[in-house]
Each structure stands twice: as C-alpha cells, then as structure tokens.
C-alpha cells in the first residue's frame, strides 16, 4: 500500500507542478514524468494483487462521524486500478502533446492539473472501502470531470453539455447517498466491511432498495440507457484526451460501483440480474444504433460507449444470474467478461478518441461528411484508428473479441444450465446483432473519414499528427494487439477477479468450476493459434499474389464508374447514405430526420431520450413551477402572513391531536 500512496502523492505533486510552472517550457515534461511515475508506482500493488490474489488494506482511526477511513486493494479494485492508471497515463500524454501549441493562449496548465487530480481521485474511488471516503472521492471525481468537460467554456454548447452532466451526476450521487443510508442504517460504522457484515440493512425491502438505487446511481454514471443522455454531449464537448478518459475510464467507475455492491451484498436477487441483463441488451442495441446515425465523430464514439457499457452489463447481468441460481461457472465467466471488456473498451476507446482528436486537430472539423482520404495524409493515425475500429467491432485477433467471446461463453453456458437461468441465452443473438451494427458503423467511419477522396479542402491539406500524440496512441494499440493475440496471459487474472466477485473462491468453488475454467483457458490459448494462422496464411496469400503479379502489368487507373471517366469526390457514397438501409429497418427507433431532395440526401440525428423525453418533461416542470410563482410576492407582509398562517395551523393541529 505504501507504493500506492506514494503514487497518489506523485500525482498530486504533478498537479501542483503545473500550478507552479504554469507556462514555462519545461512544465510539460516535468508534469508528464511525474504523472508517469505516479501511475507506475500506484500500479505496482495493483499488479501484485492481480498476480498473487492476496488483498491489502490500510485503515486510519478517525474520531469523526462516519467511522474509520479504509483504503484497500482487492482483485476487483486492482483490475480497475490498472485500467485507470494505464489508460489515464496514455491519455495524459496525448493531452500534453495535443494542447502544447495552445499553451500561450489558453490555461492548459489548469487542464493538466485537473487531469492529474481526477486520475488520483479515481484511484481512490476504486480503492476506498469506507462510505464517507468513497462518496468524497466520488464527488471530487464528478466535479473534476465537470471542470475538464468545460475546458472550452467560451462555447455555449460546451457550457450546456457541462451543466447537463453536472445535473445528472448529482442526481446519481443523491441515489448513492440514499443507497448507503438504507444499507448502513443498522450497521455500527460506515466501513464497507461493516456494511457487508451486517445483513440487517438488507432485510425486508432493504436489499431491493439498495440494488435499485445502485442501478440508478452507478448506472447513470456508466451511461446505460435510458440514463445515457448526458454522455454524448459531454464527451463531444471535452478536449479529445478528456473525452478519451471520460469515455474509456471515468464511466467505468459506475461498473465498478455495481460490482462492488455485488461483492459487499452477496448474490443479487433474480430480478436484479434480469434487469441488468435486459438493460445491457437495450443499451448495447440502442447505443450502437444511435451511434450509427451520428455524423460528429466524437458523438458517434460516445454512443459507442453506451453500446459497450451495455456489453459489459450483459456480462455482469448473466454473472449475477449465475450467482443467484447457483451456477458458479456462469457467474465467474459473466463477471470476468465484464471486467475484461471494461479494460478492453478503455484501451480501444482511447485509441479511437485520440485518433478522432488528431483528425480534428488536423482538419478543424468533426463532421465525417466533410472528411475523406486521410489515410494518405495521416498514415500512422489511420493505422491506429483502424486497429481500434477492428478491436471495437470485436473481430479476432484483437482484444475486443476476447472479452465478447467470454460474454458469449457466459450466455451459452447459462443456456446449457437447464434452469430459469437458461433464458439468458436469448441475449446472445442480440449481442451478435450489436456486433454486426458496430461493424457497419466503423466501416462507415473508417471508410468515410480515412478512405476514398477528400470531401473538403481541409481534409485534402491535413497534416500527420506529431510524435507526442502518436506514441501514446500506439502504446494503447500495442496493448489491444497483445491482449487479442495472447489472451492466455490476461484471462487467468480476469477469471480471478470473476471468482472474487462471484464469491467462488477456495473450497466454495468446487472441482467442476476449475475444470470449466481450465477449458476456457485452453480456448484462450487456441485463440493465439487463430491469430498466428491469420497472419501466416495472410502473408502466404500476399506472397502468392506478389508472385502471380511478377512480370505482369499492374496499372493505376481511375475507379470504375461504368465508363464515366471523371469521377469526383462528390460522387462518393456519403455516411448518411451508407447507413440508410439500416436506418430504414429500425425506423423511428433510430431517431433521425431524413432530408431528401433532387440532389441531396442527409440525415439529422436526435437523441430519443434527451430530445423526446427529458427536455419536454423538464419544460413541463418549469411551466408548473411558474404557476407557483404568484406565491412569491417579494413583499414582507405577505411572507409574515405565511409564517403566521403556518404557526396557526400547527397550533390547530396540536389542539386537535391532544383533544382526541
């Protein structure tokens, strides 16, 4: 634990170094070195816990209300710590390089300082083991994120997105206060251990209230449908490296919270598992569908976070069901899949956001319809984005496939269990549909942004990003490839975390579980063979192609246009047209307006929940509130009348109640 606190200390020092050094040239390097050292140090105990499976803890006596402050690292915390620190450092690195040109004009040091603090506070969120400390860290994280989102607060849209975020996150925190209040009303002090040890808080309707409030509070933070509506505007408004952190890491604290509640409260009730699974399916399908129709790259990526949170929740949901119905195999696979997809999504989503950020920096637009042909202008960014795209649609040999593969295994093994649990298998086709739609979406983004012909002058004159922004992106790409090609290295620690969350450790596990998990691990090893086969065979076909073409004519010519010899960029398929067949299938669920004319076809996306439900409801609340306005006269004697009337009413109540 000493390493952990030293790491957090270094992150704090990194933040203060920004404040001290401000705009000096050396500031960036000092900041990066400190953040890197801090993340590395704080990560040491997390890796140790994952490898050894032994938890560590530090406790401070506190005389104040709320009892002792406890910080500890168990397998669940360790998994999230690794995600937060690793991906967080890469994002910080990109941010420093990305904002460096603006150093003279903007207070970039302030953004960097906040970023380091948010990293440290997030590390506290996933390690805090007492309620007061957890809620403090949770609030600091929320406020720090708000400050980061409104970095470019001169734009009204950014301030609006920040406000929406602030409202939703505080509503969620309120739910968490209520949850802990219900849970801890009977326990002596407010440490997690005390909550877990005193089952009286969960007696009666307590368990239902706790799990429901957890779903609202943590689910809202994670961005599950229908509580996702704050997420796309907020993630689109923030600077790119902040979007990467928010989308990849910050929303995952919601997942952490849900899993932590499961660890502390034991196997959740059946309805909760079904609800989580159902909401997971809804988030995944609707998230990817809404992503499909976006034209703003960052909004599109943000909706994909909703989709991936859905996939994670499908894993968590089937895990909860497995635990509830006494199938530890399903529980371990489901929870393990959820935490692995959490890590994987953090990796590839950061790659994609950093790529989108580099494109935005180079072209000044986020509208995909105005881009094109960037593969020629920005070859390295394109390579990173391509790998990220292949990872997010979940194809082998990349990391997204490994975690989706585990989710499927959980679902199919639930189906084979032969109990009520078997109905969970119905989520498998939904996940397949999600994969297919994600494929369509990223074929669209990658194709329209990077391939074909440039659709605007800005795209035609784009320049490749600098080394400072490329290196962190490629570090994340490397992680995606390694996890995808050698899953046998990550699957065992992930299954350890799954066993921890499922409570299936030691003698409670049983021999059957060990056999199945060995089977899964053997499968993970074979996935490396699949990856190797793809590479070797692809190379062989490549060589064959080259040999066949030796001595034959290889000619460059115009793209075939049915004999038309002067194709232009405007003749290309647009992003709107590309997804039009899918939008037609899903109809009004896709939430787009189509604009058709003799020569134009384009679509305008809307958020079904925000634009059709939340904002209209809010307007109604406002109208009702205005109707109460006449009560507020602003004159002293009216208010005095209210006071006197209240006093008289109370007296009347007292007389009546004592008389009877």
């Amino acid at each position, binding site marked *: 634990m000493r390493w952990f606190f030293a790491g957090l200390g270094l992150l704090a020092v990194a933040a203060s170094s920004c404040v001290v050094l401000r705009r000096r040239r050396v500031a960036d390097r000092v900041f990066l070195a400190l953040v890197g050292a801090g993340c590395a140090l704080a990560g040491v105990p997390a890796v140790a816990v994952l490898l050894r499976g032994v938890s560590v803890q530090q406790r401070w006596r506190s005389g104040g209300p709320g009892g002792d402050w406890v910080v500890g690292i168990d397998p669940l915390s360790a998994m999230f710590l690794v995600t937060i620190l690793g991906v967080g450092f890469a994002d910080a690195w990109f941010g420093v390089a990305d904002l460096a040109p603006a150093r003279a004009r903007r207070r970039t040091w302030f953004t960097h300082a906040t970023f380091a603090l948010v990293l440290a506070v997030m590390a506290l969120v996933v390690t805090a083991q007492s309620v007061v400390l957890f809620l403090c860290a949770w609030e600091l994280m929320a406020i720090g994120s708000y400050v980061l989102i409104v970095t470019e607060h001169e734009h009204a849209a950014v301030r609006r997105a920040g406000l929406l975020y602030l409202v939703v996150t505080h509503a969620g925190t309120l739910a968490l206060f209520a949850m802990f209040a219900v849970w801890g009303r009977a326990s002596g002090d407010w440490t997690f251990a005390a909550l877990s040890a005193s089952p009286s808080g969960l007696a009666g309707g307590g368990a239902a209230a706790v799990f429901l409030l957890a779903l609202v509070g943590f689910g809202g933070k994670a961005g599950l449908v229908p509580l996702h509506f704050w997420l796309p505007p907020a993630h689109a408004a923030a600077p790119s490296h902040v979007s990467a952190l928010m989308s990849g890491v910050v929303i995952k604290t919601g997942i952490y919270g849900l899993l932590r509640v499961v660890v502390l409260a034991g196997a959740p009730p059946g309805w909760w598992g079904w609800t989580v699974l159902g909401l997971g399916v809804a988030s995944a399908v609707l998230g990817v569908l809404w992503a499909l129709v976006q034209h703003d790259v960052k909004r599109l990526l943000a909706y994909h976070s909703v989709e991936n949170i859905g996939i994670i929740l499908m894993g968590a949901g089937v895990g909860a069901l497995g635990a509830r119905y006494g199938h530890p195999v399903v529980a371990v696979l489901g929870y393990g899949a959820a935490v692995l997809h959490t890590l994987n999504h953090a990796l590839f989503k950061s790659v994609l956001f950093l790529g989108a950020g580099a494109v935005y920096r180079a072209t000044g637009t986020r509208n995909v319809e105005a881009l094109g042909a960037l593969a020629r202008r920005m070859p390295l960014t394109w390579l990173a984005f391509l790998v990220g795209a292949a990872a997010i649609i979940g194809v082998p040999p990349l990391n997204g496939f490994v975690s989706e593969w585990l989710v499927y295994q959980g679902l199919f093994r639930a189906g084979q269990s032969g109990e009520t649990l078997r109905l969970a298998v119905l989520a498998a086709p939904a996940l397949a549909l999600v994969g297919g739609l994600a494929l369509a979406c990223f074929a669209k983004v990658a194709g329209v942004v990077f391939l074909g012909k440039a659709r605007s002058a800005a795209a035609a004159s784009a320049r490749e990003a600098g080394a400072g922004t490329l290196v962190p992106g490629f570090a994340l790409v490397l992680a995606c490839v390694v996890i995808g090609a050698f899953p046998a290295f990550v699957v065992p620690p992930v299954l350890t975390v799954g066993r921890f969350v499922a409570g299936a450790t030691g003698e409670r596990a049983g021999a059957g579980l060990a056999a199945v998990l060995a089977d899964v691990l053997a499968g993970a090893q074979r996935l490396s063979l699949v990856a190797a*086969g793809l590479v070797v065979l692809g190379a062989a076909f490549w060589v064959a192609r080259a040999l066949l*073409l030796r001595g034959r004519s290889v000619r460059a010519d115009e793209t075939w246009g049915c004999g038309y010899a002067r194709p232009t960029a405007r003749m290309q398929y647009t992003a709107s047209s590309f997804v039009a067949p899918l939008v037609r299938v899903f109809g009004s669920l896709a939430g787009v307006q189509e604009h058709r004319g003799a020569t134009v076809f384009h679509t305008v996306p809307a958020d079904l929940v925000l634009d059709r439900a939340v904002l209209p409801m809010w307007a109604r609340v406002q109208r009702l509130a205005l109707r109460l306005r006449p009560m507020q006269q602003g004159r002293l004697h009216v208010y005095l009348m209210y006071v006197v009337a209240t006093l008289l009413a109370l007296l009347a109540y007292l007389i009546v109640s004592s008389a009877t």
Partner: protein
Amino acid sequence: MFSSLASLLTFLAIAPLLQGVATRTKSALTGRRGPPVLQPYADLWKLARRGTVVSATTTWIFRLVPPAVAACAVIAATLLPLDGHAALLRFSGDAIAFVYLLALGRFLLALAALDTGSSFEGMGASREVTVAAFVEMGFFVVLGVLSLATGELSLTGMLTGTTGDRLWSAAPSLVMVVLGLFALLLAESARVPVDDPATHLELTMIHEVMVLDQSGPDLALVLFASAAKFAAYAAILVSLLVPRSSMPWPLALGVLVAGLTGVAVAVGVVESTMARLRLPKVPLYLAGATALAGFGLVLLLR
C-alpha cells in the same frame, strides 16, 4: 490430425465447384445448357494469370484486403469438423470465433470498397453490412440451438460424436434450424432471393458490386474466399443432416462432398424457382429465417 488436414484441403479444393454446380442446376432447370461445372476453376485460373488494374484513389489497404479475406475464410474453415470427427483447430467457444472471422473478412472487404471512392462500391458495402448484421444474429440463434441441444461450445462438439446423437433427440428443433440455416446460407453467400450472382446491373447487386474494382489475382482471392465461405456454411448444414461420426474418415469425407454438392443443387433449384426480393424486403426475409431458428430455440427452452 492427418485426416483433418486432408479433409480441409479437399474441402478448399472443391469449394469453387459448388458454385459451378449451382449454376449448372439453374441452367438445366431453365432449359439452357449453361457453362460447364468446372467453369469457376477456369475463371480462377484465368484471373490468376492476368495483371491487375488498381484504382489510383486506393491505398495499401485495398491491396492488403484480398489476401487477408482469403486467410479469414480458410482459418474459419479449419474450425469445422470436416472429416466427421474433429476439426483441425478446435476449442471451447470456437463457434464464436468462426462467425467473427467471417465478420473480419467482411469488414475488410467493406473498407476496400470504400477505399475506391466509388458510389457503386459504397452502395454494395452498405448493403452487404446491412444484410450481414441480420445474418449474424440469425446464425447465433442457430448456434444457441446447437449448444443447448448438445451442451457443447465448439463446432466439433456440436456437429460430431455422441453429442451428434443427442442432437437428433432434439429433432423438431433441428428441422427448424436446418431450414433457417439454409435461408441464412442463401443470404450470406449472396444468392437468390437476397442477391443475384448472375445480374449484370451494378445498381441491383450486393456482394459483387462491392468488389467491382478488384481485378486479376486480387479478384481471384476474393472469389475464392466467397466460395470457401459458401462451402463452410453448407458444410455445417450437411453435418447437421448427416451424422458422420461413426464413419471412417474417408467415407465421412465422401459423404461431405456428396452433401455439399446436394446443397449446391438445392441452391440452384431455389434460384431457378424464385425471383430475388426487393432490397427493403431482405431484412424481413432474414427476420423470418431467424424466427424459424428461434422457434427451434424456444422448443429447447420450454
């Protein structure tokens, strides 16, 4: 191991034949003579010896895609128990890898199509990914039935061994799954009623318009990959209909070849008796196929 490898090579060798058989069947039923059964081989041979014309708009990915797509199809085929006993590569959960390997190939083909900047190819890629999203969903319903009926998660386990007999005890589900899978096969391999391999108007195509700019050896690789994908789906169908685990492997392989030819004939019959659907109707067709397999799943879940 040897039997698996020999079966795989035989399988890959006869994959192009199936399209020839389908075309020939169609010709015979419509009163024409048609091209010889071996025509697909002649086409591949012709393309392999040609040079190539590459669009000046394209980048490296356009040249990378044909070999990669062929590799995806072949690796997917290594997961199938072609000799009736065991796949060359088998592990728990390989059925999932099978689908996603084909998805990787499709993603790459769509990118190559968009790389040309052609509106035709963009259109083809758009239609292909639309159709594929629903085919994948349907195929996972099929996998759900197979995994529930056999208690296995690998294609080898689902399609061979004593578990194959357990599959037969779920016969009503199996009938629906076979019909659903056949409908999905038609869509996945770009045949009538979803796509028409014989059409000559770019605006009406799906799969072929997506590879309009590939030529020479590149086109040969893409065509080979399509043939292998068609044969792979057909092989699953044959393995479901004819349990071959009690046969010695050369016989099992012979049965597979005969069965694949049978599926190709069936595809030819469908093509000569049905018109292709209007594009907006295709998702309905796929929903129908998925629902059919879904009924099989419901029977097992009840």
